[in-house]
């Protein structure tokens, strides 16, 4: 009697563990499906022309995604210029003021910013930049993506700087180094690794964003580098081609997806694995 109930319990234990493992395995399967689909369909269209040419009109074969690549690059630069300085300074502020009502409010704002849907950010950039200037533009896309990068950079800067022992700051101050120099020349370099990781992750986050660009950067079939004019971006390219009815364009979308995916995953992996090597030891 007792024997059999014990056996039942052990069976339940084993079965549950197997179920957990099975479901976990199923949950990571999509990653491989996606990688497989994108690689299989994407790699076929990738060649030098694909990366360096502008899109071809409907009906013509060939054509590439150079406008999307250049546009994404431009948008990343613009958004980084906006978000990195503010984000790092805010991160320093929060790391230096761990308690206090104001720091708490500031921290809460960062967390809320992190959770705002990207389409809402797109509308904000539309209201703030597109409406006053009267035109879709790279800069409005940069503002949208910059707002999305900001909380990631703030959080990772704060987390990194919090882990730096106070003794380091005291060592510097005890040498008669002023507070600004202590922060900028001792604390920031010691946390550089984590801050760079945060910036890379934030770039990875926004590079794949489409929604906030729909009515800001808008997209453009030309090689545009004027920040006051609309530009394309890789995710916009994917979206426009993927939702088109033409199979040739679907092929371009697979290729653009492949490029985008490789870039985003590489950034993520670099941030998570690669930078560990250069971590400062205390």
């Amino acid at each position, binding site marked *: 009697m007792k024997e059999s109930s014990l056996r039942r*319990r052990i069976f339940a*234990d084993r079965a*549950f*563990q197997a*179920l*957990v*493992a099975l*479901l*976990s395995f199923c*949950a*990571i399967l999509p*990653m491989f*499906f*996606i990688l497989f*689909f*994108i690689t299989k369909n994407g790699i076929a269209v990738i060649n030098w022309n694909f990366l360096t040419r502008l899109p071809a009109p409907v009906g013509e074969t060939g054509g590439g995604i150079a406008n999307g690549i250049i546009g994404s690059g431009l948008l990343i630069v613009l958004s980084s210029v906006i978000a990195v300085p503010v984000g790092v300074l*805010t991160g*320093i*502020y929060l790391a*230096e003021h761990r308690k206090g009502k*104001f720091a708490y409010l*500031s921290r*809460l*704002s960062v*967390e*809320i*910013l*992190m*959770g*705002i*849907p*990207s*389409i*809402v950010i797109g*509308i*904000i950039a*539309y*209201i*703030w930049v597109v409406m006053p200037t009267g035109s879709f533009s790279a800069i409005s896309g940069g503002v949208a993506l910059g*707002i999305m990068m*900001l909380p990631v950079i703030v959080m990772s800067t704060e987390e990194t700087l919090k882990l730096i022992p106070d003794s380091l700051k005291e060592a510097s101050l005890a040498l008669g180094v002023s*507070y*600004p120099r202590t922060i900028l020349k001792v604390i920031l370099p010691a946390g550089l690794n984590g801050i760079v990781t945060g910036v890379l992750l934030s770039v990875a986050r926004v*590079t*794949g*964003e*489409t*929604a906030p660009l*729909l009515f800001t950067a808008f997209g453009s079939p030309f090689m545009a580098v004027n920040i006051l004019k609309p530009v394309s971006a890789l*995710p916009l390219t*994917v*979206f426009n081609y*993927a*939702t088109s009815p033409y199979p040739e364009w679907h092929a371009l*979308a697979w290729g653009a*997806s492949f490029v*985008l995916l490789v870039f985003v*995953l590489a950034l*993520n992996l670099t941030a*998570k694995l690669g930078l560990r090597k250069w971590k400062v030891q205390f």
Partner: protein
Amino acid sequence: MIQPIEGGAGQTPARAKTRDKTMTQTKAETAQAHYRPGFTLSEAAFRKILYLAGISVLVLLIAIFLSLLIASLPSIKALGISFLTGRTWDPVTLKFGALPFLVGTLITSFLALLISTFFSIPISIFLGYYYREGKASSFVKTVIELLAGIPSVIYGFWGLFFFVPIIRFIETALGVPPYGVGILASSLILAIMIIPYSASLGREVISLVPNDLKEAALSLGATRFEVIRKVILPYARSGIFAGILLSLGRALGETMAVTMLIGNSNFLPTSIFSPANTMASVIANEFTEATGAVYLSSLIELALLLFVVTTIINIIGKIIIIKTSFEA
């Protein structure tokens, strides 16, 4: 008498002034003679800059809210409550009833939540209890993290070519109109997309369950399954709930994948196979072609709604997390 010192290194301007006259008699003076700083940023100025940066995020948040609110005013004035209760969305006849989108958003999000929970909780247990370290664990963890990094537009594109044919097949078998796209397709893709968010928090709270609790139960002869059921899950319950809540916040506002898969119909959905629209997808579809003040403003009002709802959800989630981490 004890005087408080001004915060920080206490370098007040008054004290800074005395610097010159005191630089005369000491050995360190030789070094001072060469003191030519590359940049001069006083401590007070630097602290002010940091303070401004700290305040900037709060200002940004408030500005976002106010901008959305002001831009929504025309719609709020013109439509009032009928915006939320109207079933007809027809820009041509200036009818802006957003109920179909509210319903579409809620159904897709909750269906996605339901599906994702089936997987995110096992992953949390897998990573937080069975395999806390080692190759299998770090592999699964890395893949989950990468899943969170895949752009939404790629999920949508892949969904079009992977889920849609499957669902169309099922729909044909069931005898419902075989759209393929619709609520089910978007919920499935949403589910995959939000698994990483609830799983990562779930893993964290499960791995935070104190070891002595688990060991006490094991030493009483409990199996690991019983430890999970009787010790870990009750202990980690509110943290897991917070993770699910935060992933709901994600699902509500997710745009691109849903826009590509939901079928874009402005009518109230009748089943999980119906094409529909969510708040986010209708904005993505119609914003650039919205002509007329009320039309544009009503789309912005949807964004305002999304902002308010996700913000409330995120704050509640945060509060739960803070509460549980205090209890632990």
